[in-house]
């Protein structure tokens, strides 16, 4: 159906030309689903854009062909390509929040393709759009068709986008991270929808994702992209259960899995090679634990049985797993635990916001509007012991972030008691919080936003030391170096600005910043959500190490239950401002009591079969 042959694409940037894809070849058979897996910078979205013929102006196709149903797309005129695009190929983007036009009704946007591609009248297109909305599982499709995008939830928007992509009945659907921006329960629904549509319509899908659990569920075949090259390709289940390329092994070892606890995750050190001048040999060799001198020679994609692997040593390494970091720290840690009393105690904490007003209405004789209030934090009580990590999970809008910030008094509570290290801080004025601020710190989700872009790492890290008088003037520099060492960054990073570091490095600085005051409690607000899998593992390991070495307590907020289950001792499940279930990780994950917890745990996409494989290899 879709064949890509030897595709090489370069981007012109001010810093030089970047090779985003290097002779990528794959084939998606009619009615099957191929998943492209890779981390940011791997070039996977470029493939989607190239297939659709909507590459940005800076991109240049250096070589290769893209064949769609036997037709060479590049040989076609712009007109002919436009006819194929939308009519025979559909594209669903990652972010349902920004792709829909906010000023057009849903029905118009879904039916748009029918008017342009099939020559329907707007009225007939709208009727068909309603049918399509019904088909993708939207209730009351006639009402939704009249709605504007802002009136719909993320899941409904993604459904509408899929409906729009399906409108002209394309044979091929390209999905670029279609569920990444959605909550797990919604993600599960969308995947179900895609599976059903595929069966009913015999759709061919090119599914682009970084989430191996999702890929495992939806794809027949998978191709792993690294630095613009396909490093491994094969049937999904076989690839995920027995990865052959070291990078695939590393990726799979780096994901935390529900129901399988290890004290540390495997991580992939290093970073992507500079794609302005990609190395001639194996592009992964600088990060590969198995690398040898032979790896400096160019590697070609070789067929190993049903699999294609770009690694000359794949066969001798077939049985060797990615090295694990399980170093027995878990046992040391359990021995330390009992001595700890609670660092944080929260009782009946409530915070509500006014989000709007009811229309004017007469109450007795005078017209009045009543405020509409929501309580993202509603009578929450919890306590966290020293050295303990409490995970807080819940879907977007459940109030996780508000709770974390209210505990730190970054948001003032309406009612309730907050005790940090025994001191009641819930009523103190902001000026009286200095002692508490030293003891309780925060790590943010987005390291781009949490580091002041105009300050160097050294300036950033020395500020809390100076602010709290924790080091004499001559000492500051040494303490900053010690902090960098703690988060495993080299000392010369002192002179770097935020934009000169990768996402993982920025997050390390964010953690060092929180640790500078030697706090006893840190709120980690989705600290790994913005990071790639391999980097995520390293940051989680770092947080675990710091907890074990320094005895810091965490409130670890995340929407990813697998991550929380890996790192934390206890889990609290939050929904609409209330904690519906709280308890030790094993109990909540394996024996969930509340129906919502059950739904949430069941919806987590898993890399099935791999867990067993990993276990069998450890034996």
């Amino acid at each position, binding site marked *: 159906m879709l064949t890509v042959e030897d595709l090489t694409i370069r*981007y012109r*940037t*001010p*810093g030089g030309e*970047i090779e*985003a894809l290097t002779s990528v070849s794959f084939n998606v058979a009619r009615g099957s689903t191929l998943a492209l897996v890779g981390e*940011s*910078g791997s070039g996977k*979205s*470029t493939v989607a*854009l190239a297939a659709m013929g909507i590459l940005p102006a800076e991109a240049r196709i250096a070589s290769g062909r893209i064949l769609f149903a036997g037709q060479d797309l590049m040989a076609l005129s712009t007109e002919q390509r436009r006819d194929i695009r939308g009519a025979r190929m559909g594209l669903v983007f990652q972010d349902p929040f920004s792709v829909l036009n906010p000023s057009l009704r849903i029905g118009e946007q879904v039916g748009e393709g029918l008017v342009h591609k099939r020559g329907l009248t707007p009225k007939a297109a709208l009727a068909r759009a309603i049918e399509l909305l019904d088909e993708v599982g939207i209730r009351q499709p006639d009402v939704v068709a009249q709605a504007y995008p802002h009136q719909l939830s993320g899941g409904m928007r993604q459904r509408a986008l899929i409906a729009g992509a399906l409108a002209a009945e394309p044979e091929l659907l390209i999905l670029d991270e279609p569920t990444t921006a959605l909550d797990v329960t919604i993600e599960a629904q969308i995947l179900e929808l895609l599976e059903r549509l595929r069966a009913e319509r015999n759709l061919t899908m090119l599914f682009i994702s970084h989430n191996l659990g999702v890929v495992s569920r939806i794809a027949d075949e998978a191709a792993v992209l690294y630095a613009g090259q396909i490093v491994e390709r094969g049937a999904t289940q076989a690839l995920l259960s027995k990865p052959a390329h070291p990078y695939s092994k590393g990726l799979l070892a780096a994901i935390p899995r529900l129901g399988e606890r290890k004290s540390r995750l495997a991580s992939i050190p290093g*970073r*992507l090679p*500079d*794609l*302005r001048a990609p190395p001639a040999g194996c592009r992964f060799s600088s990060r590969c634990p198995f690398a040898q001198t032979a790896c400096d020679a160019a590697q070609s994609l070789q067929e190993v049985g049903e699999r294609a692997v770009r690694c000359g040593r794949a066969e001798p390494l077939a049985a060797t797993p990615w090295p694990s970091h399980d170093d027995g720290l878990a046992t040391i840690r359990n021995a330390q635990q009992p001595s700890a009393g609670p660092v944080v105690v929260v009782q009946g904490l409530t915070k509500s916001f006014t989000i709007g007003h009811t229309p004017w209405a007469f109450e007795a004789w005078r017209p009045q509007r009543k405020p509409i209030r929501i309580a993202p934090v509603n009578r929450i009580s919890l306590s966290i012991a020293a050295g303990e990590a409490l995970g807080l999970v819940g879907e977007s809008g459940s109030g996780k972030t508000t709770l974390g*910030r209210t505990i*730190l008094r*970054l948001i003032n509570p309406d009612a309730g008691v907050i005790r940090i290290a025994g001191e009641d801080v819930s009523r103190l004025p*902001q000026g009286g*919080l*200095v002692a508490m*601020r*030293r003891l*309780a*710190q*925060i790590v*943010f*989700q*987005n390291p781009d*936003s*949490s*580091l*002041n*872009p*105009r*300050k160097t790492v050294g300036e950033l890290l020395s*500020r*809390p030391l100076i*602010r*709290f008088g924790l080091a004499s003037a001559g000492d500051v520099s040494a303490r900053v170096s010690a902090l960098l060492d703690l988060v495993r960054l080299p000392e010369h990073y002192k002179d770097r600005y935020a934009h*000169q570091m*990768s996402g993982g490095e920025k997050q390390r600085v964010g953690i060092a*910043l929180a640790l500078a*005051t030697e706090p006893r409690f840190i709120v980690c607000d989705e600290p790994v959500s913005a990071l790639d899998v391999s980097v995520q593992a390293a940051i989680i390991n770092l947080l675990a190490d710091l907890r074990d070495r320094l005895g810091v307590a965490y409130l670890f907020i995340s929407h990813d239950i697998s991550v929380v289950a890996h790192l934390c001792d206890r889990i609290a499940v939050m929904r609409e401002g209330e904690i519906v279930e709280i308890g030790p990780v094993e109990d909540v994950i394996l024996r969930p009591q509340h129906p919502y917890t059950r739904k949430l745990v069941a919806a987590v996409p898993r890399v099935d079969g791999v867990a067993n494989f990993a276990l069998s290899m450890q034996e």
Partner: protein
Amino acid sequence: MSVSVGKSEPRRPMPLQLKAGLAITGAIVVLSLLAPWIAPHPWDTISMRTRFLAPNATYWLGTDEYGRDVLSRLLMGGRLSLAMGISATLVSLAIGVPMGLAAGYFRGWLDEGLMRLADVMMAIPPIMLGLMVLAVTPPALWKTAVAVGFVYIPPIARLTRSVTLTLAGEDFIQAARARAESSSYILFREILPNAWPPLIVEASLRVTYAILLGSALSFLGLGAQPPSSDWGLMISEARSFLDRAPWLALAPGAAMCLLVIGINLIGDGARERLDPRLKARVGK
């Protein structure tokens, strides 16, 4: 789509506008600063024998009704016009920036109060506001600068406020609050450094407005006083002789035109260079 580019990105090449702007403005500034030494003739010596001479080999831009060399007066006038534009802009920055920072960060009644005050100031035509300030006291150049600076406080304050609003939502401000930093530290050490790029662009454009407004006030007799040679004043004096000696008005007019274009080019170029993300926000 994110493409990983190596660690140190080389600076973008300097936009052509910025180069052209810097060349024009730089030339005018240097010539004006060197005026006392390079002026071919004394700028204020009256000589009745050389009245209304058309541009010639001795007097490159001709002479005025008192026989003074127009080129020399132009060069000296450039000093006044530039000083006027820059000091007026400094005045509006000194008051407008703290106003905008406070309004954008503290919000609430302070924001409402300051911004409504700005609205009131903006509702009065700038020239009227300048006239009001100057009409009650005897005219002097520094007063004109202050008056013009005063007129341009609202746009600076509004821009600062809008940049502050965006920055105040960033996590590094929350991180500063989590360190119990004082409000003044957050405003001037965390927010202000990040607000500079759009402010510099805006300020450079304000310099040109200030020069124009200052010249307009001089033209009305409320700025530089004779025999000083502010460009606005030169045009004003030349008005009566437009039919006999058009070069008297043309020379300062063209000089002002060039300066305004030069500074505007710098502003546009700097906007592209300093922060491409802010392009849409600043370029209303």
